[in-house]
């Protein structure tokens, strides 16, 4: 049975594995990823995010959103609704993840009462001026990646597996290669580096990794756009799992009714 890694918005597929023999090492990396996904699995997720974009000149702009996700295993639906600043209140993003293909994404703009589809071609663009791209909001299928264990390394004092993740042929991604550091003690992600055409494009660092309702998760995520020399810090407040949520909330009609 195909097992997938579900990565919430700002997480990329990771893999872990040990080396030698070669086949066994790849399997071990996959096992790490599967274990990580298993430990992060929940029927739903809710948090209030504080997004701080720090540009190259050090200027900081704050935004707040509420994030809700229903489902898992690549069949999830998520709604991200901006709350602040007042000019963007009500702007929402609906993400419908699919197990076998890229997600569908729509943005809802209340001021003109219109939704717009975020085209697949646009997934590599920046997510509303942050350092995340739309693609970074997707869930990924482990079957779409090849994993290879690279080394054991300590990040911020925590022992980690460093795993290389390469999209398989046919997988559409702006990234040609990712390195993922997975903590050995709780299988949580510590660091992800994404490469495009051989050059480091984005770096995602997890901090304040805490156990919330039995799930280990980073509460502060810092995405750095290496080429632009800017970073975005996302702080997850009021993080909760397995809250009851209605499926009707995660539709375009629901967005229009907002």
């Amino acid at each position: 049975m195909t097992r997938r890694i579900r990565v919430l918005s700002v997480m990329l597929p990771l893999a872990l594995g040990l080396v030698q023999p070669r086949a066994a090492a790849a399997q071990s990396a996959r096992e790490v990823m599967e274990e990580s996904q298993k430990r992060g699995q929940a029927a739903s997720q809710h948090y209030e995010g504080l997004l701080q974009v720090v540009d190259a000149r050090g200027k900081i702009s704050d935004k707040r959103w509420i994030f809700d996700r229903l489902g898992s295993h690549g069949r999830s639906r998520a709604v991200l609704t901006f709350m602040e600043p007042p000019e963007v209140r009500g702007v929402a993003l609906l993400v419908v993840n699919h197990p076998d293909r890229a997600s569908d994404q729509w943005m809802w703009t209340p001021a003109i009462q219109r939704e717009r589809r975020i085209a697949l071609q646009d997934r590599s663009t920046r997510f509303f001026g942050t350092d995340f791209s739309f693609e970074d909001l997707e869930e990924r299928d482990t079957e779409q990646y090849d994993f290879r264990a690279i080394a054991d390394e300590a990040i911020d004092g925590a022992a980690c597996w460093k795993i290389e993740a390469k999209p398989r042929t046919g997988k559409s991604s702006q990234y040609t290669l990712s390195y993922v550091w997975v903590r050995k003690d709780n299988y949580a992600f510590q660091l992800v580096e994404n490469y495009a055409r051989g050059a480091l494009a984005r770096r995602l660092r997890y901090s304040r990794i805490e156990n919330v309702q039995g799930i280990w998760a980073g509460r502060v995520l810092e995405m750095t756009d290496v080429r632009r020399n800017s970073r975005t810090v996302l702080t997850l407040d009021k993080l909760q799992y397995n809250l009851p949520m209605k499926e009707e909330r995660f539709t375009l009609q629901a967005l229009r009714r907002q």
Partner: protein
Amino acid sequence: MMLLRLITWPYVRRHRLRTLLTTAGIVLGVAVFVGMRTANESVLLAFRQTIDRIAGKAELQVAAGEGGLPEDVLERVQAMPEVRAAVPVIEAAVGTNLASEGNVLVLAVDMTGDRSLRDYDLESGDEAVIDDPLVFLAQPDSLIVTREFAARNGLAIGSTVPMRTMEGEKRFTVRGIMKSGGLTQAFGGNLAVMDVYAAQMVFGRGRTFDRVDLALSEGVGLERGRLAIGARLGPGYQVEPPASRGRQIDSVLRVYSFTADMNSAFALFIGMFIIYNAFSIAVTERRREIGILRALGASRARIRALFLAESGIAGLAGSLAGLALGVLLSKGLALYISGLIAGVYGIAERTTEIATEPWLMAAGLLMGVATSLAAGWIPARNAARVDPIQALQKGRYQTLSAGENRVRRAAALALGGASLALLLFAKGWTVLFYAGYICAALALLLVSPTVSLWLTKALRPPLRRLRPVEGALAADSLIQAPRRTSATVTALMLSLSLVIAMGGVARAVYDSIMGWTRTTLNPDLFVTATQNLTERTFRFPESLGDQLEEVEGVEEIQRVRTHRIVYEGSPIMLVAVEAKSMGDRVRRPPVEGPGDMYERAARGEGVILSDNFARLRGLHAGGSIELDTPSGPRRVAVLGLVVDWTDQTGVVLIDRASYVRWWRDDTVNVFRVYVKNGARPQEVRQRIVERFAGAHRLFVLTNREVAAWIAGLTDQWMSLAYAQIAIAVFVAILGIVNTLTVSIIDRRRELGVLQAVGGTRGQVRRTVWMEALAIGTVGLALGLGVGAVTLNYVLEMSQRDVTGLALPYTFPWGTAALLVPLILASAFVAALWPAESAVRGSLVEALEYE
């Protein structure tokens, strides 16, 4: 070179004013040609540059005429394997209330993905472009402007810009400033970027885009991609490189360019006669010098070369001055043409750069020099034939005019006969028709000296009756030198014939348009989203029609949607209207087709074509045409042909229901409002304005206002041609001055004798004046006659190959009546200086010849 320095230069220095007048013909001819051409090219260049700069990295553009693309087309295109990126675009030229800014081109795009095709900032990071991308998308009043535009108007992030939208004037907030670069130079820098979904609302586009710009996947060639995407989308969609939009505007402007070219050619042709005349003068004046040169051993070839070199140099100097003047004129002309095409075609464009094409400059130079050389050829030949003995004998008056030429008359007769035969029996054959025109033109040119002589002879008795001495002397002077007179008369004839032809065309166009306005475009009121009927930036929702029908005093509403589509590669205008209602209201019989054609169109049985469109494509009632629609190709019956002036490119009238179904577009450009019997249109207009004020951007025009606007547009269309004609007439009048000058030189002895035997200075003056008036009269008579013939050919050419419009032949009596005093007065004014020069000449010197 030595001869030029020793012989020519002193002559030029002695006759500075005349040299100036001679070259003025070339200067004006070249200036008109280069000015008009440069202006046209500049307008086209501005349009193409805007297209290129806005296109960015887009390799292809998908459109469905001006009807817009449903949103699902974007998704279909994005999903195609040949497509790397596809983005929606809406473009609109919008008026601002900012002082001296005029229109701003709003480029509406989806900023979430558009940067894959367009560079919004060439120098630094994105944050410099948009202050906050999320706020930009969240707020529909968001605008990005160019740095230059912001600087000119003192705008900064957070400033507001007033713009006229569907909901009246709204203030937009500057949320980004683009740095200088390719894109920001589009539309002369008056560019603003906004969100495409906000633009749908602001410009009344419903859920459509104007077009989709796309880049092809790696390894997909342009032609392969174009064909593949076109095949997947099916007919009704145009998949073309951005540059093809430039070609379409070329096609739209074809009629205009043709008229401008014709007038330029005429101006240059007239200039040629003036030069011919001026050089004839020079040869007359300098025959003594020529005689000396010949006596000293200069060969005939050398004399000929000297005069040809002179005409070449004059042509070169005149052409260079003409080029400079043309370029100077072109800026103003370009602005004028921009306004004109915006009014006539509804195409907005902003010309800031003058396109001084090297080939055009070279062509202008070449034309000027070649014209001058051609004009100087006969005088140079005559100069070479000067007999040195005769030239050196004092008092031997040599008449250069050799008198009538029988061969020429016979040739003129033959050519005239041929042209008549071709006109009567071979009119249907394009080649033969044009051959007939050339025959007629040559015949008229060849016969003009003879006719000119006849007319002058006919004028002698009345002139004598008027003033026995002066009248006879004036007439005899002209009769004795027919060649000298004929060049001026021919120049005058050509310019006046051009006036008559253009006047006739203008009269016919006026009559036809006004007739159409009265009988077909006859609603009491027009509710439009813009201040004129051609601009199609804004559209109304269909539902507004229902609300308009509820206004007290309104009897009926016709919902009209006009948009340009492409038919067999050329843009034409599609007019969708409730055909049944239109049929009930139209009071003009069709050009072709049954009386119930409107009812049949309303039943969806076919379309009605404008007669010009049908004529240019050989279509008739009972035939059929294939229209590419977004819902597939539709072969529809041609139910009938009507006169329709909605657009010069041709009109297809289609019932609105069919249009909405096939084009999936239910928006409206104009509501035609018929008021109830007894209701006053002005009152109904007031009610409409009061009811919708503030809620909708709308203008309510009365039928009279629309008629006046159309008449104004026609005037505007014609006024450039009139300006060119005025120049042509001016050049012809210069010719009269020159002719009279040479006439006085030729008749120094005669005038001297007249004074010696007691003739007064007043008599001499009157002789010269009468001579001028006689030239003017003969020129007028010939010009009106030749104009009558030219008008026939111009109308035929226009109908056959340019516009397809069947305009009735109406001789412009009003214009002709205006020309008589104008030309006679001009001739009189032109004679003042030569007359004074005649009376102030030395009597002794004049009599020395005896």
